[in-house]
């Protein structure tokens, strides 16, 4: 093992050598580098949405709707704030855990376990999207929230909510499809010769979707 992960000498020198060596700079799987580059660009897109939300929320002269109340559920007569969002958060974290395990089993060559762990991840992701569909329906039909206004407070609430959670939900949906395709290809043995880096790359995308949700949960639902 001579790569820089294990070399304590010249931590920064390694970077200089990599950039100036007149050859490939990133000594990792190229597919993984491409996924990381895509994720950085996606980070900017989600940052722009959240910054736009911050800007309109700061500048709104009307009161912002109380998210704790808007997203409350009534269970057995009890009024529990943010319950559905909490469940969705736990589902996404659980799916991140099964994905991490899938990466581990894939590199061990256990295709059976990898297939089922990835399918479990996809099913958890699909249930997340299902709950989001329920949440949207409740807000549109029962609370009367529209992109151009709502009866609870600042008009900007609706447009930022639908934009941010909608774009995230689209990512989850795409991830479910991506996971399912890769899981089936793992099972069919398409990666037996190539190696199982693809599972790690798919995992990167899935963990990123969870990562974005951490920020949406903090800034949109809790703030």
């Amino acid at each position, binding site marked *: *093992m001579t*790569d*820089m*992960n294990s070399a304590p000498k010249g*931590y*920064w020198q*390694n*970077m200089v050598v*990599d*950039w100036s060596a007149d050859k490939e*700079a*990133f*000594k*990792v*799987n190229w597919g993984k*580098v491409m996924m*990381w*580059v895509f994720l*950085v660009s996606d*980070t*900017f897109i989600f*940052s722009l949405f959240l*910054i*736009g939300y*911050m*800007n*309109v929320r*700061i*500048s*709104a*002269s009307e009161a912002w709707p109380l998210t*704790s109340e808007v997203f409350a559920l009534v269970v057995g007569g009890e009024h529990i*704030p*943010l319950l559905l969002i*909490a469940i969705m*958060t*736990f589902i996404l*974290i659980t799916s*991140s*855990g099964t*994905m*991490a*395990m899938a*990466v*581990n089993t894939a*590199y061990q060559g256990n295709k059976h376990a990898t297939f089922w762990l990835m399918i479990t991840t996809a099913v958890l992701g699909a249930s997340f999207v299902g709950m989001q569909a329920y949440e949207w329906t409740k807000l549109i039909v029962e609370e009367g929230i529209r992109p151009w206004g709502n009866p609870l407070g600042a008009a900007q609430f609706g447009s930022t909510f639908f934009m941010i959670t909608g774009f995230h939900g689209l990512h989850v949906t795409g991830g479910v499809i991506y996971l399912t395709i890769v899981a089936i290809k793992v099972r069919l043995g398409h990666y037996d010769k190539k*190696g199982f*880096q693809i599972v*790690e790359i798919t*995992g*990167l995308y899935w*963990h990123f979707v*969870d*990562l974005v949700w*951490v*920020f949406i*949960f*903090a800034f949109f*639902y*809790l703030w």
Partner: protein
Amino acid sequence: MSADTQGQQHPLSLYFKVWGLLFVLSAMSYMVDYLQFQGLLRWGLILVFMFLKAGLILSIFMHFAWEPITLRVALLVPTLAIPIFIAFMAIEGNYTLSSRLNFLAG
């Protein structure tokens, strides 16, 4: 053997620990709302739990902590533009609000 051929392999026990921590941190950030903390305490706790969760997912689940420094620098440096833009838009938002209160109120 380089990371190119081997990929990221880490013991399952590490993933389970991180998984558990993420559950605990999520529960704690939910409690911030449930217990109705307000003001600086609320915002501080939300941010602390958010950054801890994001850090764990990024460094362990996405294996960022084990990637070569060259890749890490290339991926992190561009994101430094984000806090600058946040500052710009916060200033702009406050200006818009003050204009609205001055000229649109009443």
